């Protein structure tokens, strides 16, 4: 005689309950982790990634936080972010321009050291690095803008006369001097931070910002007429009548008049 098999339902029920509990716990833990990991994606403005770093979102999927780039940087520019003490995602490499800037090594040892490609090995000319963009953020304190000849940020730039130039204009304050305005050209600026590092003021008037803060963006459909005309070798639309420009002079009679003071 076969004994009746023991009822299996309680077993199965327990199994299902255990699995459901584990899956629930897993979902909670996963969400908490996802929230934490998302939180870590906000990169502080003054933290710059090493040369060749992939865009931040891709970088966080690629960088294993090994620190080899840090070790191979001959100027000790790079640091690994420490938990709770620094802003960037914990363990990822960054630098603060005002502390130690990137010296733009010709052989880019940091990129060569990176095992994962978080620092893009396609970067073979350091002049093509885009760690950020320098912005002269404070014209009111920049010595050159005050009409003096400090020029330090301009002189230290490894891409001098291309990434940063001095643009001369009339000094209206003194009436008979010039202002040499340090002017950054984003297309050539690598974001190395040497200008910010070297600014003689107690707080730098020129700062390297991540591109997302430093730069605006043109809308896709905007066309610059003068560029289009050049490309086209003539007006883009035929038959446009070019009306004479109205220049205000004595003969000019506006269609309406502002009310005179005292009327």
């Amino acid at each position: 005689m076969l004994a009746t098999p023991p009822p299996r339902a309680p077993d199965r029920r327990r199994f299902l309950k255990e699995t459901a509990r584990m899956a629930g716990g897993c979902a909670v833990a996963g969400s908490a982790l996802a929230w934490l990991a998302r939180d870590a994606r906000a990169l502080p403005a003054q933290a710059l990634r090493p040369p060749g770093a992939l865009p931040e979102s891709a970088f966080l999927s690629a960088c294993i936080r090994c620190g080899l780039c840090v070790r191979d940087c001959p100027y000790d520019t790079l640091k690994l972010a420490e938990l709770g003490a620094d802003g960037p995602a914990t363990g990822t490499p960054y630098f603060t321009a005002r502390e130690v800037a990137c010296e733009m090594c010709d052989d880019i040892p940091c990129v060569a050291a990176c095992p994962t490609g978080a620092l893009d090995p396609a970067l073979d000319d350091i002049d093509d690095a885009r760690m950020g963009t320098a912005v002269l953020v404070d014209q009111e304190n920049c010595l050159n803008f005050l009409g003096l000849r400090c020029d330090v940020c301009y002189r230290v730039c490894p891409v001098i006369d291309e990434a940063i130039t001095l643009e001369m204009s009339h000094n209206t304050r003194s009436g008979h001097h010039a202002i040499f305005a340090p002017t950054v050209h984003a297309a050539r600026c690598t974001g190395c931070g040497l200008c910010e590092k070297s600014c003689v003021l107690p707080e730098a008037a020129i700062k390297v910002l991540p591109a997302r803060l430093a730069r605006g963006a043109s809308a896709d459909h905007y066309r610059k007429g003068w560029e289009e005309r050049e490309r086209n070798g003539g007006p883009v639309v035929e038959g446009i009548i070019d009306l004479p420009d109205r220049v205000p002079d004595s003969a000019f009679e506006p269609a309406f008049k502002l009310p005179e003071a005292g009327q």
Partner: protein
Amino acid sequence: MSERAHLPTGQEAIRVKGWRGAHRYLLLRRLSQAFFLALFLLGPWFGLWWVAGTLAGSRTFGLLPLTDPLVLLQGVAAGHWPEMTALTGALIVLAAYALIGGRVYCSWVCPINPVTDAAHWLHDRLGLPKGWQPKRSARLWLLAAALGASALTGTIAWEAVNPVTMLHRGLVFGMGFAWAMVAAVFVFDLLVSRHGWCGHLCPVGAFYGLVGTRSLLRVSARNRAACDDCMDCYAVCPESQVISPALRGGPGDTPLILSPDCTNCGRCIDVCSVDVFTFTHRFDARVSAPPETVNNARSQRAA
């Protein structure tokens, strides 16, 4: 159970084998853990760059790349296909642990192991209750959750909290508040859950366990016939559920501890006063003859 079960764990082994003999693998493990840490510290402390990097990724003698396969796997889940160097490094690490035993990482390399060991030691001394004991499989679920979170957020998610790499990176590069993370693991193991972190939750250990499922290096309860049921091995083993199938197996059952959860720490070997356990490879299923048979043979001969 013999009367010796009343003695504190390990006393008998110390009496029979001496303190050194009863702590052989413990000492070797601490040496090994210190050795691997020292390799990484030679550079920053003494300018000797034999090994650069961290456990997540390193370069030895300027040439040999090693990468933590789990970190890399999360990167892949997050959508980044790594360069050859990291892939090679991960394959070497995978091959090594698949061969010698995945959780050898846990007891011979991982810097968190001394922390959780210390927590367990104190837990024992204070005679605290077991506390919360989630299923052992929780760590596998957590491993799946970590990979899922990586895919979901496009970041290497577990590295945001992983105390293993955090402690190691902290020691080699600078701590920040990683201490808090390590302290949390210690307190968790001490007050909330006995063997909680390494035994139930850590997905890194779970991952290496999976890697070493078919690994060669195994502990065998070869001399299980000599077991006098003192239960000391169960008391010291961080994964005590793995012992019974081998130790309590009948004739014909393998004496090998084949569970991937076994960390190959060798504590069971140390603590056993009658030397039931020994390190061997997975194809060595020899069992020593039970002492009774020896005695019987002898008495028969005498008669």
